[in-house]
C-alpha cells in the first residue's frame, strides 16, 4: 500500500534532522520502500510503499511523530470516456504502470505509480489525473 507523507520542516517531525523513517522501520520492524522524496526548506513530501498488512501500524506510528499520512489507493486515475487507448503514456512512465491488454486497451497497474506526473502531461486526450 502506498502512503503519501507530508510534514512541515518546522515541526518536530523534520526528517531533515530526525530520522523519522528509519525510526519507524526500526521500531516496527516493517520494511518500507521510499519511492519518492521531495524535501523543501519549508515542507516535505514523501511517498512510501509498505506491505498492506502493516500499513495501519506504520501509519499510526508516523502520525504520532507528527507526519500527515494519506493512503493513495488509485494514485493515477484514467478517464475511460476520454482515453482512446493510444498508448502515449506507456513509454514515458518510469514505473511501467501502463501496458496494452490483448484487445489493445490500456491496462493500468496504479499500485506501481510513484506520482511523477509524466503521463499526465504526455496524454494527448487529458484522460489521466492524479488522485486527490
Amino acid at each position: 500500500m502506498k502512503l503519501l507523507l507530508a510534514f512541515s520542516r518546522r515541526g518536530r517531525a523534520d526528517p531533515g534532522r530526525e530520522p523519522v523513517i528509519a525510526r519507524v522501520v526500526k521500531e516496527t520492524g516493517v520494511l518500507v520502500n521510499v519511492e519518492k522524496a521531495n524535501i523543501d526548506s519549508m515542507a516535505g513530501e514523501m511517498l512510501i510503499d509498505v506491505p498492506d498488512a502493516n500499513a495501519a501500524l506504520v501509519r499510526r506510528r508516523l502520525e504520532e511523530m507528527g507526519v500527515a499520512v494519506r493512503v493513495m489507493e488509485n494514485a493515477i486515475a484514467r478517464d475511460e470516456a476520454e482515453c482512446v487507448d493510444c498508448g502515449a503514456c506507456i513509454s514515458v512512465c518510469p514505473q511501467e504502470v501502463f501496458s496494452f491488454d490483448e484487445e489493445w486497451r490500456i491496462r493500468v497497474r496504479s499500485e506501481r505509480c510513484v506520482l511523477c506526473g509524466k503521463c499526465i502531461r504526455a496524454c494527448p486526450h487529458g484522460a489521466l489525473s492524479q488522485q486527490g
Partner: protein
Amino acid sequence: MEKSLDLINARIRDGTARVVTAEDMPGIVDELGEEGALAEVDVVTTGTFGAMCSSGAFFNFGHADPPIRMERVWLNDVEAYAGIAAVDAYLGATQEAESKDSLYGGAHVLEELVAGGTVELRATSRGTDCYPRRSITTELLLEDMNQAVMVNPRNAFQRYNAAANTTDRTLNTYMGTLLPRCGNVSYSGAGTLSPLANDPGFRVIGSGVPIFLAGAQGMVVGEGTQHSAGSGFGNLMVTGDMKAMRQEFLRAAVMNSYGVTLYVGVGIPIPVLDTGIVRSTAVRDEDILTDIIDYGTPRRDRPSLATVSYADLRSGIVEIGSETIRTSSLSSYRQARAVAQELKDWIERGKMELALPTRRIDPAKRSKPMRETAVTPRVRDIMNRQVISITEDEEIRVAAKRLLKDETNHLPVLDGNGTLVGIITTYDVSKAVVTDGRLRQVKDIMTRKVIKTTPDEPVDVAARKLEQNNISALPVVDATNRVVGILSAIDLGKLFGGRRRR
C-alpha cells in the same frame, strides 16, 4: 482469375459478399493461397485512428437579417478562414483559440459540434451596400448549418517515421513526449490495418473512392498535400459530411507544449479484383518498415537511428544499437480495428458499395522541400571571430583581468591543445571571490558542460539554445572542437541591420 467490381457490388447488394479486415487477410492467404483467397474474399476493409493535424471543415452558416459579408469569423474564439464569400468559413483543426487559458483549438470545436454541442459564432465586417451589417454573434448547432463538410488535406499516411531524441533534455513534439538520451520511441500508424499500406501502388485507392471518415460515409478527393508515395509517404485528401460523423471517431487532442491536433478515424474498403490485390492486402506488420528519426536534430533532414518494422514497434520494445528502448503509440490500434470492423459491417449489410477511382493517384510522386529564396542566416554570418579565451591552468585573477580589459562576460576555456574544455563567466569569477578564497585556477570554477554551436548552424537554432538555457553567449566550434568564434545575444541584433533590412 479476375473478379469485376460489378460482381463484387452485386454480391454486396444481395448480402453474399465475403468481407474481411486487413488484419485477417494475411492468415487467409496463408491458408488458401493467392488464387484461393481471390475466390474467397470480395472486400478487405482497412482502418486507422490517429493524430491528423491537417484536417478541418467548410461551413455555410446561412444569411442573417440584415445580411453580413463575414470578413473575420471565430467559432468559440477559434478563428476560421473567411476569405471565401459572405457566410462561409474553413476551420482548421490546429488553429488555437485567442483567449482560452487552457489549450483549445479548431479540433475541439469540430468535436464539440459532432457531439451535438452549441458553438458561438462571432463575425465582423466593414459593411457594404449589399451586406450592411458589421458584426454578429450567435449560437449554432451542427444542424443549424447548411453545410458542414470536412475536407482534410492530408490524412492516412502510408507510414509514419518513428521518433526518438538523442539530446539530454526532454523534447515535446508532434510525436509526443520524447525522453532524453533515447529514453523512448514514439510511433504512429496502424501497420497491417493502415489503408495505404494495403494498396501501395494506388491501384484501387484514388479520387471518388468511398471511405469511412470519422463515422460518416465520405470519399477520397485525391492525393493529399505533400503526397510522396515515391518515398513511401503517400497520403490522401479526404472529405465527408460532418453531420453524419460520430464523436467516437473524431477526438480533439493536445500534444504537450506543441499544440492542438485532431484524432480522426479513416477506413477504406479494398475490392479484391485480382491476385495483385490479394498480395498487397496480405501485408503484415513485419513487412512495413520505417525509420526511427532523431528529433534532437532541429533541422528538416534528421538522421535515422535505426530501421524497424511495425511488428517491432508494436511489440513494445525496439533496439537501437545495443540498447533496448520502450515504444509508445500515438495512434490507437483498438480504434483502428473498430474502424475496419464497422466498415466491414456497413458492406456486409449493403450500406456501402464500392467504386473504382475516377482518377488515379501517382504512386511514384515525391514531394519537394521548400525553395528558399532568402538565404537562411548561419552562425558564421554574425558570430564574433575575435575570441578572447583563457587556458584552464591560468589563475582566476588572470581571468578576471581579461574579462575587465576586453569588456566581455564570457571566456571560453581551452586546454593545452587549444580545444574547448569549459567556459567561465563574470558571474563565476565573482562567485569564486565571494564564496571560497581557496579556489585558484580557472579549471576549478569553469562550467565543463558547455552549450555550444557550429558555424553552419542556422541562427534560429542557436538563438533557441540561448533562450532555452537562459544564457547569453555560445562558443562556436569547428569539427575538432576548436573555438572559431563566439555568438552572443548582442550579435543576434546584427540580423536586424544591413542586408536583412528591406
